[in-house]
């Protein structure tokens, strides 16, 4: 028996067994009690040739339907330059692991350093780690930072305008870590700052978590919030889809202590949910609470500027149960995506991405309202490239969504029976937007309810 991935010839095996003073491969498992041994083959197919593997995946692939994407809700269909995928697939990047040996890992170390530099620029914070798993876990770990920093205080306030899946992950982490999470109510789509003030006054608050643009795409005004939070000795944690940080007021500018969120929008394909990358940046004062790996610059024996993993004393492999986090492997390669994406785009390109996205979104929003089929849920709130519309048609919004799907379009994410969260990025053409509008127009005028009433609509959570 042999396989293309294994180099062992029968002669090799015989010689190697001899060196081990063994007569058969079975002897390698002489230490495993017979009772524990699997006496049969796995109930899996035997090995497949590469062609069969390819056929298998291509058969799966045809049962997916890529759609023209007007959905966001935290994950965005931005354009990734071909260079990014092409260079990220270099085997030296792809098949290395954690850069424990800096002498032969400067490639990884350097792009992480670049990534950290870029993310601090984007967030307006002082330091960044090397990456977190995704936006939800990054914000959850930011919460744990606040708890750890506060020592005794054990309560976290979370705005109701935060993306609900972030909230779900926060709740999970909090529940087992013994953190109390309270919700700051929303008022007309934004965080109710009066409520926040009152809740802070109740005491015991370690951190406050807010978002902008928030889940509804609304740019919130957090003037005075940092002072309010800091007066209560709590930390302010802000989150934003990373790409929007190219133009919106940054967590740093708002006076936040920690910026954490999702960086998928910086060059990562949608990939049905991952891999993405969570960013977490903070003030330098908090660096020793920052989870995960950090790369720092130093010099080598010849005086060259080089990069190393630093401040490892915070990490799990040294501190064990006293560590700031249990994170070990993170999203290394995706940090390379970010570094390359931002290198190519620069500040100007990132601004253009936001300009085009916002322009398209505002155009679509006003055209959808014109059709009469939709109205804006928050007509007076400023938004960038994502907004909520309420369906006014006689039939169901779910049916409209399904009709769109059958035309190859994902019209947004349903956030209630009659509300759709719609997003436009720079990858959407005017024609695609106009076709969307035309479909809404046509559908709203149609007297017959939508076709097959089958399983409908977008799912994000139940």
């Amino acid at each position, binding site marked *: 028996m042999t396989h293309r*991935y294994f180099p*062992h010839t029968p002669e090799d095996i015989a010689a*190697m067994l001899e060196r081990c003073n063994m007569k058969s491969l079975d002897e390698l498992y*002489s*230490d*495993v009690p017979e009772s524990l041994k699997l006496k049969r083959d*796995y109930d899996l197919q035997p*090995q497949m040739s590469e062609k069969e593997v*390819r056929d*298998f995946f*291509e058969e799966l692939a045809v*049962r997916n339907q890529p*759609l023209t994407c007007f959905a966001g809700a935290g994950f965005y269909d931005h*354009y990734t330059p071909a260079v990014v995928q092409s260079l990220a697939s270099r085997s*030296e990047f792809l098949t290395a692991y954690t850069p424990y*040996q800096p002498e*032969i*890992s*400067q*490639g*990884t170390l*350097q792009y992480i350093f*670049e990534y950290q*530099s870029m993310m601090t620029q984007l967030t307006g914070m002082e*330091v960044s780690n*090397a*990456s977190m798993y995704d936006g939800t876990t990054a914000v959850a770990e930011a919460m744990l930072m606040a708890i750890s920093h506060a020592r005794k205080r054990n309560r976290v306030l979370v705005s109701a305008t935060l993306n609900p899946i972030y909230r779900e992950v926060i709740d999970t*982490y909090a529940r*087992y*870590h013994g953190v109390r999470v309270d919700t700051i109510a929303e008022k007309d789509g934004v965080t109710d700052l009066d409520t926040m003030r009152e809740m802070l006054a109740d005491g015991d608050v370690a951190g406050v978590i807010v978002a902008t643009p928030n889940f509804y795409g609304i740019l919130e005004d957090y003037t005075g919030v940092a002072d309010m939070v800091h007066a209560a000795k709590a930390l302010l944690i802000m989150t934003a889809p990373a790409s929007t940080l*190219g133009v*919106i*007021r*940054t967590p740093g500018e708002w006076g936040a202590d920690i910026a954490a969120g999702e960086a998928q929008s910086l060059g990562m394909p949608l*990939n*049905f*949910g*991952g*891999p993405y990358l969570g960013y977490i940046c903070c003030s330098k004062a908090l660096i020793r609470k920052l989870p995960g790996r950090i790369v*720092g*610059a*130093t010099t080598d024996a010849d005086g060259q500027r080089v*990069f190393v993993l630093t401040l490892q004393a915070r990490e*799990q*492999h040294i501190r064990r*149960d*006293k560590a700031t986090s*249990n994170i070990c492997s993170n*999203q*290394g390669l995706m940090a390379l995506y970010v*570094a390359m994406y931002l*290198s*190519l785009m*620069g*500040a100007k*390109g990132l601004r253009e991405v936001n300009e085009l996205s916002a322009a398209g979104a505002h*155009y679509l929003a006003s055209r959808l309202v014109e059709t009469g089929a939709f109205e804006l849920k928050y007509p007076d709130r400023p938004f960038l490239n994502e907004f909520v519309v309420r369906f006014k048609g006689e039939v169901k919004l779910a049916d409209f969504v399904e009709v769109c799907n059958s035309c190859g379009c*994902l019209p947004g994410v349903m956030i209630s029976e009659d509300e759709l969260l719609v997003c436009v990025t720079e990858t959407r*053409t005017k024609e695609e937007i106009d076709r969307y509008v035309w479909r809404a127009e046509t559908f709203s005028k149609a007297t017959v309810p939508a076709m097959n009433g089958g399983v409908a609509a977008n799912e994000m*959570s139940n």
Partner: protein
Amino acid sequence: YYGKVIFELSRPGRQGYSLPSNGCDDVLPTLPAGLLRQNAPQLPEVDELTAVRHYNNMSTNNFGVDTGFYPLGSCTMKYNPKINEEMASLPAFTSLHPFQPSATVQGALEAYYTLQRMLCEIGGMAEFTLNPYAGAHGELTGLMVIRAYHESRGDTKRTKVIVPDSAHGTNPASAAVAGLKVVEVKSLPDGTVDVNALRPLLDDTIAAVMMTNPNTVGIFEHNIPEIAEIVHACGALLYYDGANLNPLLGVARPGDMGFDVMHINLHKTFSTPHGGGGPGAGPVGVRAGLEQFLPNPRVVKHSGDDDPLFHLDFGTEKAPHALGRISSWLGNFAVELRALAYILSLGSDGLKLAGTLATLNANYVKESLRDLYALPIDRVCKHEFVFDGLANKSTGVTTLNVAKRLLDHGFHAPTIYFPLLFHESLMIEPTETESKETLDEFIAVMRDIAREAAEDPETVKNAPLETPIRKPDDTAAALNPVVTFAELD
């Protein structure tokens, strides 16, 4: 300057992108100025070729599995097949938005479901979730599952987790994040858990015992049936850290050993590339009876005739006890696709062979070096083993020196100073994809280094001598952290 950073290649006015116009009016200026950032971020401005050369040449300062032998213990640096990369890059997968209706992503859901079922068979478990993003994230999820289980029974006293002293740091750290206290149990001289030391620790405050098997020194925990019995007897659950699953493929299953909950590192055992430190994936499996505690969302298959066949279950109806959501969606999906491709490629026969040959390679290296390196545990090992530095302790040459000297010879170093059981741990995991010739070359170099340590210890102590950078000053880096370009002078 060994390598410039991209900021140093930037020139105002250069650009490496271009975007199509969509003909809509720019609305940014109409937004309240106070909600927009005041200054543009300081990002590089480079043309495309400058970026390409920069990252292309930067990559060559890295050592990967495709470069050479990478015997990093506990990390299972096996070959990452190219076909897996290609399959995970099919646009019909990469372009899917996570919130697309299920009917439009049946292929993706089936891929997830299929892998889930395969892992159940391999782990001997009833159910798996692929949602955790990495091994440590899987541990955390697994411990939360265990807490959810105890809570569902009203058993709220269980606030402690027992981990062996040989455990990887993520084990205690995960326990701490999950709000559990850590109790360490000692190992015997042969590296296995001391059952007699464990027994008195087990009481009704113990939520779980975390183990890996084979353990971090590469030794199979042959007392595992007894351990499972006493752990279960005290009402705790037994957690399997899957970091070391590779050698047991096709031979023994955690579920059959009595483990209740486990995770698997797809990037180790199932060969997804390590990417310089991720993305990995840490699926979590549970034995029958614990399914309802797994996190949401879950992929479920409806009965035969339903169309579409695969659905997402967000948990409220079927699993009121589920621990909730621990990640955005269904985990690192593209990593899962790679693992699926790997398992299909190997099949039942190939998987078993992988485990066996990984074990053979480790024993072969161990037996070939045991005269020159200190072997604190002299038993058949599984996928890896640990030396306690050089056998000849008189030279002053440390494990760090040996590791650095290996770099001079074109090998990646083994894992060093872990596990903490020994002062000079040198942990070697060859994996099954390395040829006898490669191992023989490594063995020869290791023997040369041992000889050199005796004859010319200063050379070894000054290693590395041939790498493009040498002896970076870690202390200075930690004392005055410079972690962004803005902080460089």
